[in-house]
């Protein structure tokens, strides 16, 4: 029970020397070719990480420009809007620049950053490692999904160059099908981008489900998997079951836009609310595609840095599946202001069911802290920030699920703040924490700890200043997607803008820390945090083949009470008194 049989059994024929990051012997060009044609999940994960990071910067710049525009309640008739002047658009185009910016921010952040973010980067990198596998089940499909992602990103950027779409990321008809834009190209391109990205998402999800089913290492039963893997499993189920519906939705939207088939256009007898149903049948479950990996990452971070077995392992695992199941029942709460009364009541009732597994998870995370050995390093600070922000995000979801209050808060800044607390405070914060946590494993380099802590604090403070004020804006009557507003709201908007730039600075510091680590970071030990899941058994960065021999699992991922972490000085991680024999069985 206290040792592991994960050993290098000397199958030298299997592995070459050096890590997966070792450049190709044929020079830089050969290395690029090697990466571009790799089917190694780790390389693909890293490629995803850098493309997602690039897209995150694009979306982030758009966000900062949005906040800059809202510094003043500008009037186009007076002297033009701030963003309008910045991009020298003439005053007749009104708020188009702003509208395109928030559309780009939304579409890029949702379709290109958060949805593929955690699953395709950390998931790709870690899933086979945590399962003790050599690769994901379909490595070539995995590479294909990265190329599809890049193609989708290219379409999104092309749409942006082609004046950009101004429909909002939700593409509501009939505005998107018949009214938006002066050219056909930009909207169709953005829609095509989202359509293509759906394929990438489906392939990743499908790949992960099969990997989890078929490639767990010997000895690993379903309840010996790390909870991150459980979260990825639930995520993948949603990706596979929900994404095809956005495929057909966007396909019909393109038909609508090009041929005016009329299914979603009331001018031809169609029903715009039907489009919303189609859209949210995917886009609500996809909210859980975004948050579930974040929850999984947070679980890992808390367990490792508290050195505690996760409290209620099965409850968390089943809560993940529960969230995935309920995800398909609640999409109507995005449409309370446009649906019929019966549907509103039913969807409101169903929406509350999401709160239950989510609450269970939060309780379990907090309970895990009890009597642990909590290290307050950067990843743990991110995990604690996640708990704080996600709790606010979850609790502010309650008045949005309650019909009487949602009729006021719907489509207001309250909603904006709520989903930023969940999507950004939840997913992005956990994701960045996860990147810190596994950075040594991925790159073989340590980052500078104090810079990480400073960055984390800036992000945490900036985030709260930005978005907490927006709750008040929404409650007081500030609608979404407004480029100019009544003067009463200016103070709160300015506080929010200051917060946004603090947040941006925090991320910028993190980025600098990573770049510095890549160039001049200390070499990372195989197991800097004392983790117990399988990825910590191999060197940092891992070799091309992950494990030198097939690992055989002998302990659970969270047996911190009984097992010394591998590659660590046991004195650093003392174990409690052994359990009395009588209670050994659980």
């Amino acid at each position, binding site marked *: *029970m206290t040792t592991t*049989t994960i050993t290098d059994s000397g199958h030298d024929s299997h592995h070459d020397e050096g890590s997966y990051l070792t450049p190709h012997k044929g020079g830089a060009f050969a290395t690029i070719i090697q990466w571009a044609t790799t089917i190694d999940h780790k390389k693909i994960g890293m490629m995803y990480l850098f493309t997602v990071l690039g897209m995150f910067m694009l979306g982030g710049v758009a966000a900062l420009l949005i906040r800059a525009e809202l510094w003043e309640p500008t009037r186009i008739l007076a002297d033009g809007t701030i963003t309008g002047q910045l991009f020298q658009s003439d005053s007749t185009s009104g708020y188009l620049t702003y509208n395109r910016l928030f559309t780009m921010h939304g579409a890029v952040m949702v379709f290109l950053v958060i949805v593929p973010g955690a699953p395709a980067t950390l998931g790709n990198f870690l899933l086979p490692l945590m399962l003790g596998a050599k690769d994901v089940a379909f490595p070539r499909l995995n590479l294909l999904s990265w190329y599809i992602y890049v193609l989708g990103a290219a379409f999104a950027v092309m749409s942006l160059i082609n004046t950009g779409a101004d429909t909002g990321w939700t593409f509501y008809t*009939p505005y998107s*099908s*018949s*009214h938006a834009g002066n050219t056909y190209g930009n909207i169709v391109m953005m829609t095509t981008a989202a359509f293509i990205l759906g394929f990438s998402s489906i392939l990743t999800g499908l790949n992960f489900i099969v990997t989890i*089913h078929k490639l*767990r*290492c*010997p*000895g*690993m*039963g379903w309840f*010996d998997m790390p909870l991150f893997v459980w979260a990825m499993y639930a995520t993948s*189920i949603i990706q596979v*079951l*929900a994404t095809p*519906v956005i495929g057909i939705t966007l396909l019909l939207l393109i038909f609508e836009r090009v041929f*005016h088939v*009329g299914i979603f*256009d*009331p*001018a*031809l*007898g*169609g*029903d715009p*609310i*039907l489009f919303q*149903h*189609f859209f949210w*049948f995917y886009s609500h479950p996809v909210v859980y595609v975004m948050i579930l990996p974040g929850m999984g990452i947070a679980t890992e971070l808390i367990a490792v840095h508290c050195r505690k077995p996760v409290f209620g392992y099965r409850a968390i695992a089943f809560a993940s599946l529960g969230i995935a199941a309920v995800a*398909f*029942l609640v*999409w*109507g709460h995005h*449409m309370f202001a446009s*649906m*019929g*009364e*019966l*549907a509103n009541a*039913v*969807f409101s009732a169903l929406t509350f069911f999401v709160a239950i597994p989510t609450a269970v998870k939060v309780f379990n995370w907090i309970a895990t802290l009890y009597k642990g050995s909590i290290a307050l390093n950067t990843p743990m600070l991110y995990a604690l920030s996640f708990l704080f922000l996600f709790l606010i995000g979850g609790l502010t979801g309650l008045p949005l699920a309650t019909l009487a209050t949602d009729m006021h808060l719907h489509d207001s800044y309250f909603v904006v703040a709520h989903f930023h607390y969940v999507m950004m405070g939840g997913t992005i914060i956990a994701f960045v924490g996860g990147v810190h946590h596994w950075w040594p494993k991925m790159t073989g380099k340590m980052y500078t700890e104090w810079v990480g802590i400073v960055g984390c604090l800036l992000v945490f403070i900036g985030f709260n200043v930005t978005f907490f004020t927006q709750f008040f804006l929404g409650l007081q009557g500030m609608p979404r997607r407004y480029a100019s507003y009544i003067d009463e709201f200016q103070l709160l908007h300015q506080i929010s803008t200051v917060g946004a730039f603090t947040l941006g600075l925090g991320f910028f510091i993190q980025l600098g820390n990573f770049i510095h680590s890549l160039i001049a970071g200390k070499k990372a030990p195989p197991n800097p945090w004392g983790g117990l899941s399988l990825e910590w058994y191999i060197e940092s960065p891992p070799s091309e083949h992950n494990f030198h021999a097939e690992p*055989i*699992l*002998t*302990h*659970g991922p*969270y*047996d911190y009470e009984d097992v010394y972490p591998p590659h660590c000085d046991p004195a650093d991680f003392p174990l409690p008194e052994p359990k009395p024999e009588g209670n050994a069985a*659980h």
Partner: protein
Amino acid sequence: MKAETAKTFDPNDPHGFAELGEHHGHHITSTKMLITVILILVALTGLTILTSEAETYLVKEMGWALPEWVNVAVAMSIALVKGAFVLLIFMALRYENPLYSIVFLFCMFAFALFLGLTGMDIDNRGHVYPWKVHAINAGGTGVNMNYPGGTIHVLGETITLPPTTYTGSLANHVKEVYIEQTGISEDEYHRRWAEANHIHEHHDTLSSPARSIARTGPSGALDEAVPGEHAQDAAHSPETNSGH
């Protein structure tokens, strides 16, 4: 937490699938079975066409008032049986790993939710205000979509698109253009219309939407579009065929 599994570890069956029954190997379906199934499928196809024709006959010739759902229920039940045969035998779900059936059932579950909850909204708008149920103009308000109109060339044919704006439905607009271009009388149009719609006799007594074979005239759905409860309704009502 672990350890028991490691003791009985079998490298060829690392997850104990043999015990769980997860490995089902390769089932070879017999020719006899395949031929039986294809014959059943062909017979069911004949049956579904036959029932559909029989319903038409019953309604048209015998004057039975079959409710609308009979048609759907019969056709869909037969389709379900056919689909089940293909899935279970041809696609071998019956013999294979139950996991595949579970995947398929989950997919059906998602489909049912999609259909059911969407229908719950789309078909239940009028509980508080009945005037929320219907479209103001059956067939649409008229094209209002920054669409240039004019002519386009598709498959070597020149097609004239409707102008950007007309009021009422596209079908009505096309009809008006046709009458204007050909200069035919309303009666002549109705004769040609009945011919094109394969209606040789008028069964006015059967023209209820609750029945099969409901079609007798182009205005069936128009008559019930909006109740005239308020003074403003005259402006919205489809008789004047104007959006606002």
